[in-house]
């Protein structure tokens, strides 16, 4: 059956205990065991029969092995997305499109990562299309390409030395309220300024934390969703646009692609940026948050670093942001855990960090594929 895209919902979510998984292990953990655990939790969360799942979208794990492990042998549609962070938003978009078109009825989106125990470094190997031409200068790691953007941003807009500190501090303060977050010890702006440089001007506390872990979410029609266990979370709208070059560095900090996505998303949903109750922003490195806030009209261009302050972006402030602790403090789950947090906030399940009266959440990812969704409670339908 075909559906309008706003008639599609996230019904179940599951994720690992990221804090427990940060513990060192002798041998790499099995990403499939982690992924299967997250999927089992997502199924349990919504109470759907496993056999109703007829679409399977995977990232960082592959469908054939995963489907075998979890006994989903006859899905009607499968797709492996590459294991990059830009794919988490795409996974939801693809699930929505598949359900809207009537191709399948229930999609499981599953991510599994054993990056920490397998000692993945995201620097020194692999890399983008020009990696072979960059490493001879010692240039490697995604954070370094973001550092180039931030250096330029800082020069253009006069951002202060400690302009990124509130973002790192905010993530940590929220992580302290999230029992599964890896790093829960709060720090101050001064502590931030004492943390060591990685790719200067970026410091250790600007960086995502590589970990083991898995995330799953289950997507279906709003109609089916209403008879499941938990209140459905409506996908009010979603949009995307690539900005692909030889480098992770975008010379406009992804601004034009973000603007294009933002204008379509806000028009499609009839929701304005100031009406969003909670922001979930892809934060591989803290400057990405500034680029996102400006690209999506939450802050004036060039002023996001002034706009963010620790009170405003705290869960009980005017513009709550990254309420689970984000990639720098909860766990680097490549955007997937941000989706889970969005769902929990809308259901009122976020415990000590619950945003009061949260009815609208926006996920945003400024990266070589820009994606954004607006998710709402059933009642908040535009």
């Amino acid at each position, binding site marked *: 059956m075909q559906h309008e895209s706003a008639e599609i919902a996230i019904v179940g979510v599951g994720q690992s205990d990221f804090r427990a998984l940060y513990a060192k292990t002798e041998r790499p953990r099995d990403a499939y065991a982690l992924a299967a655990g997250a999927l089992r939790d997502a199924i349990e969360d919504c109470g759907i029969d496993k056999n109703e799942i007829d679409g399977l979208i995977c990232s960082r794990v592959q469908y054939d092995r995963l489907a075998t492990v979890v006994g989903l042998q006859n899905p009607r549609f499968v797709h492996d997305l590459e294991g990059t962070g830009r794919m988490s938003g795409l996974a939801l978009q693809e699930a929505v499109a598949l359900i809207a078109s009537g191709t399948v009825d229930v999609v499981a989106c599953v991510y599994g990562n054993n990056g920490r125990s397998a000692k993945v*470094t995201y*620097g*020194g190997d692999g890399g983008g*299309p*020009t990696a*072979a*031409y*960059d*490493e*001879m*200068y*010692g*240039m*490697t*790691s995604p954070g*370094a390409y973001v*550092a*180039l*953007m931030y*250096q*330029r941003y800082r*020069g*253009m807009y006069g951002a202060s030395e400690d302009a990124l500190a509130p973002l790192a501090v905010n993530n940590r303060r929220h992580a302290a309220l999230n029992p599964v977050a890896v790093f829960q010890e709060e720090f101050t702006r001064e502590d931030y300024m004492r943390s*060591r*440089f*990685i*790719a*200067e*001007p*970026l410091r250790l506390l600007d960086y995502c934390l590589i970990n083991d872990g898995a995330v799953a979410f289950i997507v279906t029609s709003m109609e089916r969703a209403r008879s499941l266990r938990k209140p459905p979370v409506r996908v009010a709208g979603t949009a995307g646009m690539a900005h692909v070059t*030889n*480098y992770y*560095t975008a*010379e406009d900090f992804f601004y034009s692609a973000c603007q294009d996505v933002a204008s379509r998303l806000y028009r499609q949903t009839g929701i304005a940026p100031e009406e969003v109750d909670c922001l979930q922003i892809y934060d591989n490195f803290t400057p990405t948050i500034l680029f996102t806030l400006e690209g999506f009209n939450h802050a004036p261009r060039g002023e996001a670093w002034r706009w963010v302050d620790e009170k405003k972006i705290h869960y009980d402030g005017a513009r709550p942001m990254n309420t689970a602790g984000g990639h720098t403090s909860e766990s680097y789950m490549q955007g997937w855990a941000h989706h889970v947090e969005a769902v929990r906030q809308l259901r009122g399940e976020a415990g000590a960090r619950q945003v009061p009266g949260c009815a609208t959440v926006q996920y945003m990812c400024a990266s070589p594929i820009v994606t954004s969704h607006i998710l709402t409670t059933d009642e908040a339908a535009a």
Partner: protein
Amino acid sequence: MNVQSIADEYEKLLPEITPENRPYWDGLAAHELRLQCCDECGEYRFPDSEVCPRCLSGSFTWSAVSGKGRLWSWLRMHQRYLSVFDGVRPYLVAYIKLDEGPPVISTLVDPPDELVFDMPVRAVFQPGFSDRTILKFAVESPEPAA
């Protein structure tokens, strides 16, 4: 690491010389920056690729370019990702926009104490930590007053 083992390790970081990219490396050895220039529309591209990203023509000529560009941004790498750089950390990495269009990652030789966005730079041709000549840049000295 001694000089020889650094050179050996460094060689592993350099792109393999292939029939497709050899004109680039031959150019550097001759102290010239050569890029593919599209025979149809004149677009320059880097690194080497089969077709013009602007018009998709597969016809191109390796042409010497000015070697001039602007410093778009830079960073200082403190993290130990690649051990051959141990002796020079933290080191400068630059993102340079060539006057002909393509941006390149490189470094600056003898950089001034204060770097300025968009300052003019020019190509220089020097080895890295091994014998092969690689592309680096130097800040253009201001024209002497007449």
